[in-house]
């Protein structure tokens, strides 16, 4: 479905070159949900934008992103435009500002449909209504004629989710879709996403900085740190058998219902303009040993379906 291989992204800024992603390899299988988890600044959004072909001009990209047999990085802007919003869709973090204030919800949804599918206004309107019902918007006929400022954040995010599914895409990327919402609304939206992903054929990449949320939505989890994928495994495997020192640290820092101490990982996230050589986690790693600051450890399948980028597991 989607196969990312050796993806590197550098942002050329006035303050220097930010090595946001380095040698990232990932696979998303048909119909599955891959949760991408990592602290803020670990490169999750950069990865999402790379897949969508929406990186800013100052970004340099290398590697390959194979989607349904073609390398997205070698497509033209026009070819990418046709995929975006149709085969690959996205829901961003900020529902409050993600909708054009001058359009009604109906106009927006119909445009997403008509841009790619063509057809009549009537068809588009029916489809828009159907989608609003699917995302459980109350009084969908009324919402169709509402302007974004008349809707709450949660309602707007439902509209954006409806837009991401209206064209029956193959891949839906959700980049922290609940992070900007109130806690009570977050839970509702996560439940909705969980239900929807069971109903539709699409694969999902679900991005979050919260391990608990990643586990509740994802089939598999990829852990990112400082622009690298550190560990990938099914969620059961990852929680019961974390192998990467960073994943272990993350799990130890999550507050448990059963009590127990919360232990944050000592140290800070590195400056990606000047990332640590070798393993990017080595300055904070309690297990680091002699090869760690020399060569970059690559992702290796240590057990069936369980991948780790760490010299402890060779």
């Amino acid at each position, binding site marked *: 479905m989607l196969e990312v291989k050796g993806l590197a992204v550098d942002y050329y800024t006035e303050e220097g070159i930010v090595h946001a992603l380095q040698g990232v390899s990932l696979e998303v299988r048909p119909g599955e949900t891959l949760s991408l988890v990592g602290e803020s600044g670990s490169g999750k959004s950069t990865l999402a934008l790379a897949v969508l072909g*929406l990186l800013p001009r100052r970004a340099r990209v290398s590697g390959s992103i194979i989607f349904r047999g073609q390398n997205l990085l070698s497509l033209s802007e026009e070819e990418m435009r046709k995929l*975006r919003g149709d085969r690959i869709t996205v829901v961003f973090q900020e529902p409050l500002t993600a909708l054009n204030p001058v359009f009604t919800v109906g106009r927006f949804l119909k445009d997403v449909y008509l841009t790619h599918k063509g057809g009549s206004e009537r068809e588009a309107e029916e489809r828009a209504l159907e989608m609003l019902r699917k995302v459980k918007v109350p009084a969908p006929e009324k919402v169709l004629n509402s302007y974004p400022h008349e809707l709450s954040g949660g309602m707007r995010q439902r509209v954006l989710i409806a837009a991401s599914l209206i064209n029956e895409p193959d891949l839906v990327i959700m980049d922290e879709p609940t992070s900007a919402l109130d806690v009570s609304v977050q839970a509702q939206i996560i439940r909705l996403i969980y239900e929807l992903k069971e109903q539709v054929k699409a694969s999902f990449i679900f991005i979050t900085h919260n391990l608990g949320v990643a586990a509740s939505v994802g089939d598999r989890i990829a852990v990112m740190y400082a622009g690298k994928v550190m560990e990938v495994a099914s969620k059961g495997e990852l929680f019961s058998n974390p192998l990467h020192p960073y994943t272990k640290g993350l799990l130890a820092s999550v507050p448990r219902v059963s009590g127990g101490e919360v232990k944050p990982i000592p140290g800070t996230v590195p400056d990606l303009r000047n990332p640590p050589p070798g393993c990017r986690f080595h300055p904070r790693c309690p297990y680091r040993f002699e090869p760690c600051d020399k060569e970059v450890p690559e992702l290796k399948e240590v057990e069936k379906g369980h991948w780790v980028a760490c010299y402890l597991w060779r």
Partner: protein
Amino acid sequence: MESRLVRRALRNRNVKVGGLIVLAFALIGILAPFISPYDPTKGELRDSLLPPSPEHPFGTDQLGRDILSRVIWGARTSLIVATASVLLAVVAGVVVGGLSAYLGGWVDELITRVIDIMLAFPDILLALFVAAVVGPGLENVILAVALYNFPQFVRIMRGSALQVKEMEYVEAARAIGESSFNVFFRYLMPNALAPVIIHATLRTAASILTAAGLSFLGLGVQPPTPEWGQMMSDARTYLVTAPHVWVFPGVALFVTVLGFNLFGDGLNDVLNPKVEV
């Protein structure tokens, strides 16, 4: 939300007073053919320089033409020049300023440089220069005044569009596969327009004044078209002996410009935009 804004605007004294003056000015300009008592271009020489009387409330000018009628028709001329020149400048400014912000890179740099140079000229000098090059006449005055307004609208639109460009819905538009054309015209432009519209009302006042100034200097609207600046210019010889010839167009000009300025300032206070020139 919009109705609350309108109510707040109507409670603002500047908006109310300015708005009434602007409305009166526009109505007089539009209705000139129906409310003007005489033909503004015809007069009897033997009636020249008559003081105000019941027959000619504002008196007559050196050619015996009714000054009230000429003031009324002058409103029409000012209305045409101001609306056309501001509209022209707004349309061009919105497209150029919007593209400058949208495209960025060297296009933006080039446009910004050129606009900086244009803005370095004192306001009326640019209009004077253009008027001197293209010659007098109604269309040329419109062109000259439009050109003098143009760089300001480019700058305001660029600033506003740069802010809108960072809005997530612009990126979201690209994420749903909208073409660049649509992103620009349906997402960026309509959302960046508010400060441009406020500035347009302020520039209307300045444009009326500039057009009158050009005509006063003989570079603007040509006789016999009635125009306030030119009427005042014609009255220079009779400054003391027949002051009514310049006083009435002068007062009309003053009140109109004041009205637009009050209205624009009031709107500005109500909407309180962040963009300044």
